[in-house]
């Protein structure tokens, strides 16, 4: 094996390698961001109605949170492999179904926490102001849950960015592929590139929701 020899003779960061592979790295970043974006989008689309259901029909809450909690406990690599027979071997669907699965617990729990912030006084005020149940939900309770939802989106995004690297084992992976390349070559540079860019993506995703929250949740600024 020439691997270890290569590692000891190469500098910590080999800029020549990075320049030579800039295209591959760029594609990996794009795929990483895309996999994350789809997962967060779908996770959000599923979590909001599910959380509303759990909030409106209280008896469904334990079952919904229990199922999401169970999904969350299954190790990511195992989950990809377990759903493959149904979602297709090495398919995009496999990667996304599992990634979305991990966002559900975080997002549903946070929406519920936010909705629970609507105290009895808030509800009475909403009724007194003449809101219909649907109107109260869309104009009062849901807006009140937004800060908690955004907090959940931030955690979910950072979590998914990390998990995407694991999809490298089912032939996706974005920056996970770059990391694995480094491992196979016994070569620091690709691993560090994968590590740093993946953390950067997580930070960008996190910052995006901080900014979006500032824009959408306007009343918060008045409070602060």
């Amino acid at each position: 094996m020439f691997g270890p020899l290569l590692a000891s003779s190469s500098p910590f960061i080999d800029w020549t390698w990075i320049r030579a592979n800039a295209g591959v790295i760029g594609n990996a970043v794009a795929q990483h961001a895309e996999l994350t974006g789809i997962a967060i989008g779908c996770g959000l689309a599923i979590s909001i109605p599910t959380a509303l259901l759990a909030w409106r029909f209280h008896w469904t809450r334990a079952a919904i949170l229990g199922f999401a909690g169970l999904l969350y406990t299954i190790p990511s690599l195992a989950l990809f492999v377990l759903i493959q027979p149904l979602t297709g071997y090495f398919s995009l669907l496999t990667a996304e179904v599992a990634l979305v699965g991990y966002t559900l617990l975080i997002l549903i729990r946070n929406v519920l926490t936010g909705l629970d912030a609507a105290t009895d006084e808030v509800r009475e005020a909403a009724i007194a102001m003449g809101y219909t149940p649907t109107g109260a939900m869309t104009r009062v309770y849901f807006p009140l849950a937004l800060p908690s939802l955004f907090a959940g989106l931030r955690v979910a995004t950072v979590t998914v960015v990390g998990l995407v690297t694991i999809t490298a084992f089912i032939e996706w992976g974005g920056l996970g592929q770059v990391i694995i390349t480094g491992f196979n070559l016994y070569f620091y540079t690709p691993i560090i590139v994968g590590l740093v860019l993946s953390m950067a993506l997580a930070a960008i995703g996190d910052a995006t929701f901080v900014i979006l929250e500032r824009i959408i949740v306007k009343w918060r600024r008045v409070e602060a």
Partner: protein
Amino acid sequence: MDFLTGVAQWFTSSANWSGPDGIVVRAISQVELSAAVIAAAIIIGVGIGFALGHFGRGGFVAVNAANAARAVPSLALLTLLVTWPVISLKGSGFYASFLALVALAIPPILTNAYVAMRGVDAELIEAAKAVGMSSWQRFIRVEVPLAAPLAVAGVRTAAVEVVATSTLAAYVTFNDLGDFIFAGLATNDAVESFSGALLVAGLAGCTDLAFLGLYRLVRPASFRSTPAVSRVATRSRTAVA
């Protein structure tokens, strides 16, 4: 159906259970690795978290540790350690896996321990001072028992994560249940990888339940060990819940 029959056959074949690459040996080595990691992470994470919480310092770092660590991909950490000649694949991948997993497990444990310690009712601490307890007595007899349940909740989260991620240790040649998944993926043996995934998921589930048990055990114990404050503590706890 054929597929599930294959999985059933895989599990009933004694060859898959015995030998150095069997389920039993691999499950034990995965549990050993995870247990060593969790023990080390508890000593470091709870130690630092409780100390920072008790003295009320380093709050920003302690609270944000878990969030920052979430962004570090464990795969990158693991492979980086293996590529580092000092560690490489020594101990059949044990050292690299151990270090990467400890780094992964400390932040959530530390954050929870810190938050748990800060969450102890200030009135109780005042009461402990009033009855003449020293700082150390207060820490051991009031703060630790009251902070234990939330701290254990952090350990539970970390433990499930550690067991889950220890599957990746197989990628750096550590002989554990993850090997079935990687071998199955490498040879397109869907039955083997699926069976390995079932085993790994089962192990993670057992870990979760074990620490849930510990959590329930710690809760009443925290009141038993400090009968004098139990009534007040119960009241403040229900207020929080």
